[in-house]
């Protein structure tokens, strides 16, 4: 599995916020893509229910994986493809390696795929002496720079053209340029050689179709088509939830996916791949393998509260509107998935304790739910994670360690909340206590730990001497209030 750095959320978030280039890039990106996506959503002939329709399609698929996956697999087998069901990351990687070894693969070209990042495919191949080239331009830039993606769809948004220019000058030996067309052309030329000489292509799968027995891939650059057409062997990895029941389901989902991912009406290339080349074909791979990956998904599926997250189509629209992501960037999330979807998926995949900052470090503002093309209730899922972390039952698979002190404070607070007299009494203490805090013009300027975070850049008003409710009671007693 790829390295998990979710625990470093706070530190990495601070680093992200301290990087002025990243701040500018994130803000510019969000402001450009998010409103354009929202506008696209409004233009479908199906009207405002279009995202609910998409939700129904995805939920139906998730709830019928028991019949859809075999159907998909059989369709591919019938065309001479091979299908491997991988229980976990190790099994998926091992299968990929076995195919590569059997075919004597030395060089792999790869299209962007989240699940291969999740299972750590590149590292395993490289350890086995097989060169893996990421061919999506953004991913290619990051691979040359030795970095990881910071966005699901636009992996290199944190890189400026100047940085790319210097990188290409150094690694590709071209004269320095900061002109995006020139830089793109340089990558095009370098990668074309790779496409033509690679022995194996690796791709993900966007939304497979069970009815027809095809996987699909989506890209704008054409790199995935190259990777899946030119090499002798094509191996595709898909999370087991990435399938729909019927062909017609794609009519809606591909439109929404294109809107959501890049504010496009339609993505540049969508390919249906159902097997290796037929004998009448002059192109296409001799071998086609589909690896269907569980790696923790069946546990999510088994949980009625979390099942909904499997509807996700990995479009990144939730990242594009998230105010927290917009501040800290994708690296802070410490795993393949970032933003709101990452806060949920990562926690469910790597464990609640390791990823607790991801689902607590969000404000529940709800922007993600509105942006999601399949209307996943991400705030509900974040709340459920918090609940399971704080109060999970002992037999819960998705249980967190909780925090004893916090739980105690909450319990006490709960007692106050239902005993108005105690509540009032506690407040008296607080009103007295606040006099000892440093203040300026009647406003508290420094709070003690653990509340000191608040006053790091903000004041706090003092508690009013008397509660509104007390004042009201007094007025009523004097016979002035109400009528």
């Amino acid at each position, binding site marked *: 599995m790829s390295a998990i750095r979710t625990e470093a959320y706070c530190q990495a978030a601070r680093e992200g916020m301290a990087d002025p280039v990243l701040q500018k890039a994130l803000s*510019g990106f969000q402001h*450009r893509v998010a409103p354009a996506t929202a506008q696209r959503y409004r233009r479908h002939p199906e009207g405002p229910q279009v995202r*609910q329709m998409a939700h*129904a399609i995805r*939920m*139906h698929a998730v709830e019928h*994986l*028991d019949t859809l*996956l075999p159907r998909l697999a059989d369709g591919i087998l019938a065309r001479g493809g091979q299908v491997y*069901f*991988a*229980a976990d990351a190790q099994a998926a990687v091992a299968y990929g390696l076995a195919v590569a070894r059997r075919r004597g693969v030395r060089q792999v070209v790869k299209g962007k795929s989240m699940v291969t990042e999740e299972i750590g495919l590149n590292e395993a191949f490289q350890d086995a002496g097989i060169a893996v080239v990421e061919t999506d*331009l953004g991913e290619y*830039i990051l691979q040359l720079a030795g970095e990881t993606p910071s966005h699901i769809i*636009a992996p*290199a*948004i944190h890189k400026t*053209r100047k940085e790319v220019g210097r990188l290409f000058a150094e690694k590709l030996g071209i004269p320095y340029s900061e002109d*995006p067309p020139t*830089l*793109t*052309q340089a*990558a095009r030329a370098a990668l*074309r050689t790779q496409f033509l000489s690679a022995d194996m292509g690796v791709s993900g799968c966007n939304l497979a179709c069970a009815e027809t027995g095809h996987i699909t891939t989506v890209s*704008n*650059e*054409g*790199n995935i*088509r*190259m990777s899946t*057409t030119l090499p002798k062997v094509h191996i595709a990895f898909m999370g*087991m939830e990435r399938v729909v029941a019927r*062909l017609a389901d*794609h009519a*809606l989902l591909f439109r929404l996916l294109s809107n959501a991912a890049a504010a496009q*009406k*339609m993505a*540049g*290339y*969508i*390919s*249906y791949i*159902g*097997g*290796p*080349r*037929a004998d*009448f*074909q*002059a*192109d296409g791979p001799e071998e086609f393998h589909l690896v269907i990956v569980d790696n923790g998904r*069946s*546990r999510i*599926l088994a949980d*009625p*509260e979390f099942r*909904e997250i499997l509807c996700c189509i990995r479009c990144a629209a939730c990242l594009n509107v998230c105010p927290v992501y917009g501040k800290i960037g994708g690296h802070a999330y410490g795993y393949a998935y970032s933003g709101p979807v990452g806060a949920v998926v990562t926690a469910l995949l790597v464990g609640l304790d390791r990823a607790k900052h991801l689902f607590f470090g969000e404000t529940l503002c709800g922007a993600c739910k509105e942006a999601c093309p399949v*209307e*996943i*209730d991400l705030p509900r899922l974040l709340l459920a994670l918090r609940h399971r972390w704080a109060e999970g039952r002992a037999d819960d698979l998705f249980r967190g360690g909780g925090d004893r002190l916090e739980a105690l404070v909450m319990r006490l607070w709960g007692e106050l909340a239902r005993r108005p007299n105690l509540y009032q009494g506690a407040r008296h203490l607080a009103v007295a206590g606040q006099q000892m805090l440093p203040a300026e013009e009647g406003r508290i300027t420094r709070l003690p730990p653990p509340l000191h975070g608040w006053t790091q850049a903000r004041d706090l008003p003092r508690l009013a001497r008397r509660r509104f409710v007390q004042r009201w009671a007094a007025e009523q007693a004097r016979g002035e209030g109400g009528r």
Partner: protein
Amino acid sequence: MTANREAFMARVRTALSAPTSHGRGAIAYAELAPLAVAKRSDAPLELLAENAAALNIQLQLAADPAAAAALIRRIAVETEAEWAQQKALVRWDDALLNELDLETALADTGLPLYRAPLAAPVDTVARDRFHRQLRSAVIGITSADYCVADTATLVLRNRPGQPGAVSLVPSVHVAVVRESQVLVDFVSLYAELAQERRRDREALTGRMTFISGPSKTGDIELVIVHGAHGPRALHLIVLRDPSA
């Protein structure tokens, strides 16, 4: 490997034995079909023109096959070579393109025009030859099964003489469709595909590709650049129906 599959599917079945308690939306899957509304358009060609322009597709109309061939000849002459010294063209071997008689139209230019192998099965020799031609070609010429006006999408399927790579590997892609193949939107496209599948379950073939515009990327500071990996330009020629 079957044991693997069995164990995997058993886990899925067990997982699904608990009903969904959250996340069922307002609409049920069974209610969807009537909600899928196709756009209507009296002038699909105008709709296509608008969307093609937005995607940087060079759209041209041709009154007859000869006019289409003449357009392609012009494109061939004006396009600059990218990967090889000599400009070459490669085309699908299918009925529509054969009608254009490009061999004659291009004869005076002296540019080589290769044809994708038609005879099945394609042997290693034919395949290697085709791959060499493909690499050296600057223009790939294909037809298409459909063209969707609302998204300016071409639908290509792999059949004998129609390898998808012709629309991908050369620097420039030229596609020719008949006006009657233009559909309004994605909903109508999928309805057509469903129709076809009712007649032939393998109608989609093992490889179907939708192409909406030339290859593009925005990965460097969101600046859109054409020709990331696939064709840097896409010319679409619509052959008018004889009645028009």
